[in-house]
């Protein structure tokens, strides 16, 4: 049975599907989150070096990973929308950006709160944190550009070009910041050179990462439903929707 994936490429058929997926992903996120937090707080031992403050890792690293993953997935959807001219892919990119930006903010916030007890300063221009900050600028640039352009079709295409240019630059920015950091401060200071990871710590972090991943998908799917309703408000099928 060949699944006609293009059937789901039309907003009209994707809208109900997304509606069914959102609760599933969020439920998965809650379950995984509960397990991850339990491991993080009740199974993982105290770290001999950092004491208890390292437990921030269970949300800092997942948020940082997600901020990077979401940007790449966003750029992929945007590129797809640009090449195949499928409106839904571009809507998916637009829907992912805010969640990605929030993940970046969380990575920065938790990084600062973890840095304070570890280095004594809220912000230490560590290579990873600085790249995270620049990634936040890239998200803001993408959202600002799409917000400034009224015509949705042009906003999608312009956003796609920016996201593709951005995704090429993300590794370049990361390595140039890493070079810049080692040049000025030497390699001693690195936040996420995680302490020797007991397997419970690692397990907790991985499960939390999956929880964040499931949450992000759910959030993006719900936001894409709103984007679909806004963009297709004049379409017939939107009008017949029961006010659910």
């Amino acid at each position: 049975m060949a699944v006609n994936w293009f059937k789901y490429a039309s907003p009209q058929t994707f809208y109900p599907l997304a509606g069914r997926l959102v609760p599933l992903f969020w439920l998965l996120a809650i379950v995984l989150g509960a397990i991850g937090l339990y491991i993080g707080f009740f199974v993982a031992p105290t770290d001999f070096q950092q004491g208890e403050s390292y437990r921030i890792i269970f949300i800092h690293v997942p948020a940082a990973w997600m901020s990077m993953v979401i940007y790449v997935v966003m750029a992929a959807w945007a590129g797809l929308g640009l090449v195949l001219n499928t409106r839904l892919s571009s809507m998916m990119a637009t829907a992912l950006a805010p969640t990605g930006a929030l993940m970046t903010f969380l990575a920065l916030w938790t990084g600062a709160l973890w840095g304070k007890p570890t280095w004594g300063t809220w912000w230490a221009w560590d290579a990873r944190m600085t790249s995270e900050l620049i990634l936040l600028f890239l998200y803001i640039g993408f959202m600002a550009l799409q917000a400034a352009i009224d015509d949705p079709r042009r906003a999608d295409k312009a956003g796609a070009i920016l996201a593709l240019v951005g995704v090429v630059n993300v590794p370049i920015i990361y390595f140039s910041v890493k070079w810049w950091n080692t040049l000025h401060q030497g390699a001693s200071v690195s936040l996420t050179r995680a302490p020797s990871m007991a397997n419970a710590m690692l397990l907790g972090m991985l499960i939390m990462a999956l929880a964040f991943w499931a949450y992000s998908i759910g959030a993006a799917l719900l936001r894409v439903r709103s984007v679909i309703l806004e963009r297709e408000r004049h379409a017939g099928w939107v009008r017949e929707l029961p006010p659910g």
Partner: protein
Amino acid sequence: MLEITDLACRRGERLLFRGLSFSVGAGELLWIEGRNGAGKTSLLRILCGLGVADAGEIRWRGRPVRRGDETFARERLFLGHANALKDDLTVAENLHFAARIAGSDGTLDAVDRVLEACGLAAVRGSPVRHLSQGQRRRAALGRLWLAQAQPLWILDEPFSALDTDSVDRLSALLGAHLERGGAAVLTTHQEVALPAGRTRRLRLDA
């Protein structure tokens, strides 16, 4: 020469036209009529390759036209509402540049001949900024005299802001273009100026 099948275009939420099919043969002029906002300009911009149609296909000499298609670009001329002139450059410099970009003969005496034909020889060296609206439009139309080698002319309101003898000059030029086997698609409000016998109409109703 130019065949359009099932063209559709949506501006934001509004569907401008759908299922539009027509063709323009050698020596033919297609006059696009319709109220303001009926999508005339959008249609012309799609034909020339600036705009993107929501559906449908454009074929030139039997081959479908892709955006950025250089052979089609070599054979088509587009004149929009905007005069496409740099205010700080002189009339001669503007035309010289337009010719070089379009790949047609940009030598100085060619430009002079065009200025003569447009009746702009006197203002040859003055910046476009100092020209009147009518003179600017004639300078913009100078591009047509340069474009003898381009068989397809797509013109958006070419007769607007022209005085009577410029209108006659332009319609004579259009007639000559059609005689040479060229094709043209244009929008205009002055009916009188179009070469009789070779003009077909296409009504775009909103």
